[in-house]
């Protein structure tokens, strides 16, 4: 039997505020356990929450960037469940009046227009962390509440995702949007970006959806993909053998690349949501809405289209350039000084990104500023220096932050493109290598390479190979 795949993704994003959502504790990652806690985030008796303004504004900005309808009045609700990492045994979240509803994301995929609609976007607090001791026979767990209360944005998609590829594109597009609006570090390995998938299959052509299975414990984009593939396989097998899919939650085991049943939906929790009486509602005034909207930069999809249309870049190149807003900005900045987008794009993709990767630095800390890069590219395109020389100049510039022409001069890298200067040398080489010249004349085209090499040797690599080539051909013909 053939099945259609129906996937929904739930995303949790930690907002990179300085403090937690409801108290002034630092939200810095990686501190000693239980050193970033206070009466509020430990849920000590008598403590009360007060909302972090920046966290709220970030959430609003995200809801806008994700094309949501913004409720002009939003409030927070308590979601009740018992878990040792949840200090109050309820989470302050939103249920009845979410910040944003009915949004969408247009996925960045080559040759396809795919829109995934969003059920809602809301703000809530993170839980602490449970740690399990290394000894295998330990019968206890440790709790660290440093993470408890860090602001989390939850983005709930509708089940519009129909393939693994779309799921991957969804995650990447969402991640770059969040990156562009600068509200989160989006580091999956540190848990600041987390996904949960729900998957169901339906027989092709049938409208009725099969039972939904939720997958948790997905720590990387790769594990999301692998778990979805695994789940599609598992469900198809069960259905093909005449079995039934139960509504359940499964836990992904990354080590063994499989998932296991955690709890069935029948045991699902009764969250007893009700409005949080310790917080007051938020009325979203037009001015705030305007401010937040204005703070949203051109988003990845728009940039991609612009790069492709205005600069005639391929989807592949444009997509690489827009991944990181600062790279995209860098590219845009370069194109202001120099109107060869393809050359700039090649330089950024091949040289700049490689250098940043190898040296693990951000573009903001990169010594070669856009104007410097375009000057270097110009030197190459104008034939002032060779491509090979340019690469070494690039490395010098990156190390020292010095302008290209300074380095070119220092090292005497200016190419000899002047035919007058080269004429006697070319003539000498032709004279000295009669046999090779004859070979060339007899049709052995690559023999010319040998002659170019000789000239380069004599000029210590400074001769412009293009010019030398042309001169050789002309002079041999004469």
């Amino acid at each position: 039997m053939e099945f259609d795949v129906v996937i929904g993704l739930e995303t949790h994003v930690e907002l990179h505020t300085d403090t937690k959502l409801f108290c002034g504790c630092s939200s810095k990652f990686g501190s000693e356990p239980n050193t970033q806690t206070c009466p509020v985030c430990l849920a000590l008796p008598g403590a009360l929450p007060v909302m972090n303004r920046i966290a709220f504004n970030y959430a609003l900005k995200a809801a806008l960037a994700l094309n949501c309808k913004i409720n002009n009045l939003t409030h927070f609700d308590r979601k009740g469940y018992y878990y040792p990492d949840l200090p109050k045994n309820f989470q302050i979240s939103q249920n009845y009046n979410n910040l944003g509803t009915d949004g969408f994301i247009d996925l960045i995929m080559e040759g396809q227009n795919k829109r995934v609609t969003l059920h809602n976007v809301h703000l809530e607090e993170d839980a602490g962390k449970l740690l399990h001791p290394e000894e295998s026979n330990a019968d206890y767990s440790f709790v660290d509440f440093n993470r408890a209360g860090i602001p989390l944005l939850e983005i709930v998609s509708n089940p519009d995702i129909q393939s693994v590829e779309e799921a991957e594109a969804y995650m990447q597009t969402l991640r770059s949007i969040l990156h562009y609006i600068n509200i989160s570090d989006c580091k999956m390995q540190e848990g600041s970006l987390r996904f949960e998938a729900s998957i169901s299959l339906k027989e092709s052509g049938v409208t009725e959806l099969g039972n939904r299975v939720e997958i948790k414990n997905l720590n990387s984009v790769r594990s999301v993909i692998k778990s979805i593939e695994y789940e599609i396989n598992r469900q198809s097998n069960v259905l093909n053998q005449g079995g039934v899919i139960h509504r359940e939650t499964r836990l992904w085991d990354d080590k063994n690349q499989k998932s296991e049943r955690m709890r069935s939906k029948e045991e699902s929790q009764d969250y007893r949501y009700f409005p949080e009486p310790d917080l007051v509602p938020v009325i979203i005034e037009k001015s705030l809405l305007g401010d937040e909207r204005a703070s949203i930069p051109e988003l990845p999809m728009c940039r991609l289209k612009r790069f492709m249309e205005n600069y005639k870049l391929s989807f592949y190149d444009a997509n690489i350039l827009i991944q990181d807003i600062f790279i995209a900005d860098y590219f845009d900045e370069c194109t202001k000084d120099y109107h060869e987008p393809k050359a700039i794009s090649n330089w950024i993709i091949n040289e700049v990104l490689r250098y940043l990767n190898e040296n693990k630095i951000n573009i903001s800390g990169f010594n070669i500023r856009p104007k410097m890069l375009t000057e270097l590219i110009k030197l190459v395109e104008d034939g002032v220096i060779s491509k090979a020389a340019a690469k070494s100049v690039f490395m010098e510039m990156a190390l020292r932050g010095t302008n290209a022409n300074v380095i070119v001069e220092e090292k005497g890298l200016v190419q000899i493109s002047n035919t007058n200067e080269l004429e006697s040398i070319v003539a000498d080489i032709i004279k000295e290598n009669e046999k090779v010249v004859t070979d060339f004349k007899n049709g052995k085209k690559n023999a010319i390479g040998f002659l170019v090499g000789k000239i380069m040797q004599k000029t210590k690599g400074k001769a412009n190979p293009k010019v030398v080539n042309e001169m050789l051909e002309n002079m041999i013909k004469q």
Partner: protein
Amino acid sequence: MDKQQLEYVANLSRLHLGNDEEDLFLEQLQKVFIYMEKINALDTDKVIATYNTTDANNVFREDVVIPSLSEEKALQNAPIQNKHFFKVQQVLD
């Protein structure tokens, strides 16, 4: 409220009720809930619910770090701890 509902809610409440307690509570709570039915006499279709009587809204704090409790203070009331962590029965997730 019947016995099954009482047991369901006791479980939600993370309370373990003994048999005697269950019987006593059921009797008492049934009486209370019969009394609560009173409010159903009122037509509230067009009434907006009141969750809080303060007319305040948009109350925020600025995103400024305030010193946290020391590790020692944070853990001072913990029934079981190891100087750095709270300790609980093993949780398998």
